[in-house]
């Protein structure tokens, strides 16, 4: 099993290299470069200065040399420095990742808790009005673009009802407090959570229904166990196994997909950092972000497998 995971890790390396090459090329194809993007409105800039700055940043080198340079640094554990702020990219990522993780964590918790609960109820009450209601909710959930939902949430809950702040990480000017922070995370987390709640709900429902049809559930009932024990111990335990895969897949997707929501809600995570980097043509930051998200996607796939093997004793990876 260990060998299996090591093997998987090794296979991921060429994958990452491929991804970075492609993104590197793409990033270099973006019109304009970091220097041009930095030119400010109120300042006279000469072409000399532009050329000089470009030379400093290595933007005048052939593409493959730029890549090799970058790769060489990566191997030494150095993600490079932002063209814009000259900050170390790894430092930028480290300082922003907690916010993204919090947003993901809260959003994922909301969608897991809601999705699994509603999905289970839906399955247990198959064909009831609740089931139909949840199903329709689920479909609507996967049909509304999250950015649109985000806009509507801000409008309704922040501007009209004033229950939650419109944006940000904490209230400006106040000391950090968890309660305040949680109030801020709620709306963006909710906007991100809806789709996944719907997805998890549908998977859970299908999975629970399938498990309910299994012989061992009948066995459990035949043993005269309490309904709750049957549901929690026998049904859920098994029904969760396929749901874990979906959660795992979404972990990666969520990480890379919070970009728009982070921007709309001004959430100071790596998604916003990425958008700013794209705007500023800050390719070390773009590359650092892509490398990170790809690694997280790959890692979450691996974790999913691992979780799978923990939940299901039958699984032995060879």
């Amino acid at each position: 099993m260990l060998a299996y995971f090591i093997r998987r890790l090794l296979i991921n390396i060429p994958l990452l290299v491929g991804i970075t090459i492609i993104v590197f090329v793409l990033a270099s194809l973006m019109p304009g470069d970091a220097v041009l993007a930095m030119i400010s409105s109120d300042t006279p800039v000469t072409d000399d200065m532009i050329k000089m700055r470009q030379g400093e940043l290595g933007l005048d080198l052939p593409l493959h040399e730029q890549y090799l340079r970058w790769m060489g640094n990566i191997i030494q554990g150095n993600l490079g420095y932002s063209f814009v702020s000259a900050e170390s990219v790894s430092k930028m990522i480290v300082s922003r990742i907690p916010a993204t993780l919090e947003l993901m964590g809260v959003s994922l918790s909301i969608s897991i808790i809601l999705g699994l609960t509603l999905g289970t109820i839906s399955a247990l009450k198959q064909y009831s009005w609740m089931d139909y209601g949840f199903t329709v909710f689920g479909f609507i959930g996967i049909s509304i673009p999250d950015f649109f939902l985000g806009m509507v949430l801000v409008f309704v809950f922040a501007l009209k009802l004033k229950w939650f702040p419109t944006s940000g990480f904490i209230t400006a000017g106040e000391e950090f407090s968890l309660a305040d922070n949680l109030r801020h995370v709620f709306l963006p987390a909710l906007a991100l959570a809806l789709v996944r709640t719907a997805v998890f709900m549908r998977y859970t429902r299908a999975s629970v229904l399938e498990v309910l049809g299994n012989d061992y559930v009948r066995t459990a009932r035949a043993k005269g166990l309490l309904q709750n024990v049957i549901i929690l111990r026998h049904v859920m335990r098994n029904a969760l196994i396929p749901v874990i895969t979906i959660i795992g897949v979404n972990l990666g997707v969520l990480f890379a997909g919070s970009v728009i929501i982070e921007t709309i809600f001004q959430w100071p995570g790596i998604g916003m950092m990425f958008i700013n980097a794209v705007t500023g043509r800050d390719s070390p930051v773009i590359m650092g972000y892509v490398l990170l998200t790809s690694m997280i996607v790959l890692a979450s796939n691996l974790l999913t497998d691992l979780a799978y093997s923990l939940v299901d004793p039958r699984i032995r990876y060879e």
Partner: protein
Amino acid sequence: MTTTIAKLEKIRPESLWSKAWKRFLRHKLALFGLSVMAVLLFTAIAAPVLTPYSPIKQDLRNLRKAPTAEHMLGTDGVGRDILTRVLHAGRISLSVGLVSVSISALVGIVIGVAAGYVGGKTDMLLMRLTDMVMTFPSLVIIITVAAATGPSVYNAMLIIGLLTWPSIARLVRGQFLSLRTQQFVTAARSIGVSNWEIAFKHIFPNTISSITVAITFGMATSILMEASLSFLGLGVPPPTPSWGNMLRDAQSMNILEGMPWIWLPPGIMIALSVLSINFIGDGLRDALDPRSLL
């Protein structure tokens, strides 16, 4: 003898497709979805004759007018008729959905079949490629590519298509691998059918129903992606209307609050079309469930 053959079968055999169709018709949500989709498609195709206005032509004297008999859904920031734009946007959004899902299906099927059929090293390589594309943080790639190539309808179609094929490739390959172990494949080998024919005559037709379902859901995804892209200004470029870029034009709070006729219609159209395609997909999945066919 010829005549006997012709006459023998009087009862029309019930093909799998007609059986599936019957099952599909029993799926209420799917029927709902299908009818909504039919209406959407019709209005999109017939948009030019349904309304007297041009989706692009502006009327600066009639800006942001609330719905009236003349402009049933009001007008936007440069006086264009929202109804007209929503209908024309349907053409764009639906065709982006269709084209990109076709690209995605084409690439996905070719790669999936190649991997599942050839197997071995080819399979390994193709699956790594698939993994790679799947691992791409897709939004990230989309933003980067769109920023690199500039927004256009065709780019949107291509980008979406080229990023979404892996799920179809995996599906096809998975089906190939599992169908390869089915006894009817061994049976085909046992009577001397060539590998090529096994792949295309025996295995492939059996993957069509799953592919159909995947394509349907893929279409929903593509429409949503187009909306996101256009919303970000990376998809369909104005003034050509698409539901996504119409929503982009409605982000400000005063429009959200005071001019719902500007943002509600495209928002509803996105949700409605994605919803009905999902319903159709759900119905197809039930109708084409391989377990119900064997």
